[in-house]
């Protein structure tokens, strides 16, 4: 068994452990630059870096909003797809398309949609007289983050919807019938039959969504590259710049470590409270 597992160790475990420990060194880009162990130096530097913490705050706003909206919209769509509606097949197919698209292309598509001068949203608002000048969704300080969040929700709808739909389909029909016979309305059936049965699926998909969203990179990199004025600078973008623009590998790894610790802490807290409410 050991030789078969060697690849996991070699290709997955070793690089990750090396990444985690790099944070305690002064590793930098460039040829033959000696690397030293520096203890927690990077972390204490990080503590004073207000730009990083503001990027961290933006990352949390982004991850929470996108995850919550994905969940609410995904649950709504899954409930609809679970009904015997016509055109259901079309909606189901459409809801899968974003999953298959490269993030770069999703971003390009939305850059075209949100274009201030020729994009459909900005020009329609002007034609309707709701705004009198072009709206630069991705370039304006106040609209950049919300606009990026909408794109994030669009891109991540499929996984959430399909997982929740699978969960809904696993709820036995007989339970619904029994509840209906007892006189439960559709809201009561949702509240007392569907929702409890979905509990583990909801915990799993919201956790996964949160991890994916917090660690996402390509979408926002192509949409705004973190701008305007750092308003959409997700932590991954910040760490990327630190590592590959300024060559500060150790420092960037420290940021990565902080991200891991935060995600794990949040997940533990979230999953524990969800599991406790289940019992």
């Amino acid at each position, binding site marked *: *068994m050991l030789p*078969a*597992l060697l*690849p*996991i160790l070699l*290709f*997955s475990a070793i*690089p*990750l452990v*090396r*990444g985690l420990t*790099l944070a305690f060194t002064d*590793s930098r880009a460039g040829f033959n630059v000696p690397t030293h162990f520096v203890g927690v130096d990077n972390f204490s530097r990080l503590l004073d870096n207000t730009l990083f913490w503001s990027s961290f705050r933006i990352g949390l706003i982004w991850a929470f909003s996108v995850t919550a909206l994905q969940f609410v919209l995904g649950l*709504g*769509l899954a409930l*609809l797809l679970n009904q015997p*509606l016509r*055109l*259901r097949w*079309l*909606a189901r197919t*459409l*809801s*899968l*398309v*974003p*999953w*298959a*698209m*490269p*993030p770069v*292309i999703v971003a*390009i*598509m*939305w850059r075209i*949609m949100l*274009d201030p001068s*020729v*994009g*459909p949203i900005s020009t329609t608002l*002007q*034609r309707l007289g709701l705004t009198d000048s072009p709206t630069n969704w991705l370039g304006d300080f106040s609209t950049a983050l919300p606009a990026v969040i909408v794109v994030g929700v*669009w891109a991540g709808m499929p996984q959430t919807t399909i997982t929740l739909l699978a969960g809904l389909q696993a709820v036995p029909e007989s339970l619904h019938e029994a509840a209906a016979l007892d006189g439960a309305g559709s809201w009561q059936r949702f509240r007392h039959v569907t929702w409890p049965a979905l509990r583990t699926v909801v915990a799993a998909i919201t956790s996964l969504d949160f991890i994916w969203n917090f*660690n996402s*990179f*390509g979408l926002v*990199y*192509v949409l705004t*590259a973190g701008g305007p004025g750092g308003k959409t600078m997700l932590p*991954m973008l910040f*760490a*990327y710049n630190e*590592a590959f623009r300024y060559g500060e*590998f150790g420092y*960037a*790894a420290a*940021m*990565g470590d902080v*991200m*891991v610790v935060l995600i794990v802490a949040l997940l533990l807290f979230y999953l524990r409270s969800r599991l406790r409410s289940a019992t």
Partner: protein
Amino acid sequence: MTAGARRRRLVRLPQYGALVLYMLFLAFPLLWMLSTSLKSSSELVSVTPSLLPSSPKWSNYSTVLREQGLTRSAWNSLRVSLASTVLVILVGLPAAYALARFRSRLRTAALGWILVSQVFPLILVVIPLFLLLKQLHLFNTLPGLVAVYLVWSLPFALWMLQGYVASVPVELEEAAAIDGAGRLRTLSNVVLPLLLPGLVATAMFTFISAWNEFFFALVLIQSPERATLSLTLARFLGAEGQVQLGPLAAGSLLATVPSLVFFAFLQRRLTSGLLAGAVKG
């Protein structure tokens, strides 16, 4: 019409309304990109754009296909995605078999590790790989990128594969052994055919993730002639000066086609019921 049927119809109405709104949200950006790809450059600068192009043209597509950089990037993407898919399956299949069949503490540890590795931000993975590839003189090469995709896709592929292996009943292997089949023969004639749908699904999944990947390519590939499709399209957009929206939209749509086709297949494969009758009778 009974009162119940009428009430049901009243409930359906808002449901259809909601469904239409969902479809608009999901489909409109796609339709708009399609329309952009069919518009002439003079129509694209109109400040009153319409969803239907006034006279649809294919010229943006021919422009893109003549663009040497894009076709070369498509070729790079294809080679990298195919190579990493083959490697992931070759390395992953024996490991997945071992994980699924031999219960031990190592197995729990390995599965735990696979799950944990999903939590890590890619920045922690990419820096050590960057340093390693530099040492091996594989930085800014396609083989280097393939190696990184192997590292990156392996955990999830293993997770999928070991699930498929676990669903092949051990009884079948035992029966084959009793019938006198050797270990290798059992694996190739009994297990492998049953595993095929799962193998295909995993391979497609790996292909799609490599084809769509952006972050590693951005860090590890520098020469434009070795760029993958995502990289070239992103640079196209980031270039200073006037962005040609028409060819950009056309190129983006073409670049989506391979993943979409595979995805359509994957959908059907995942529900394949090959195993349904395997232990019966």
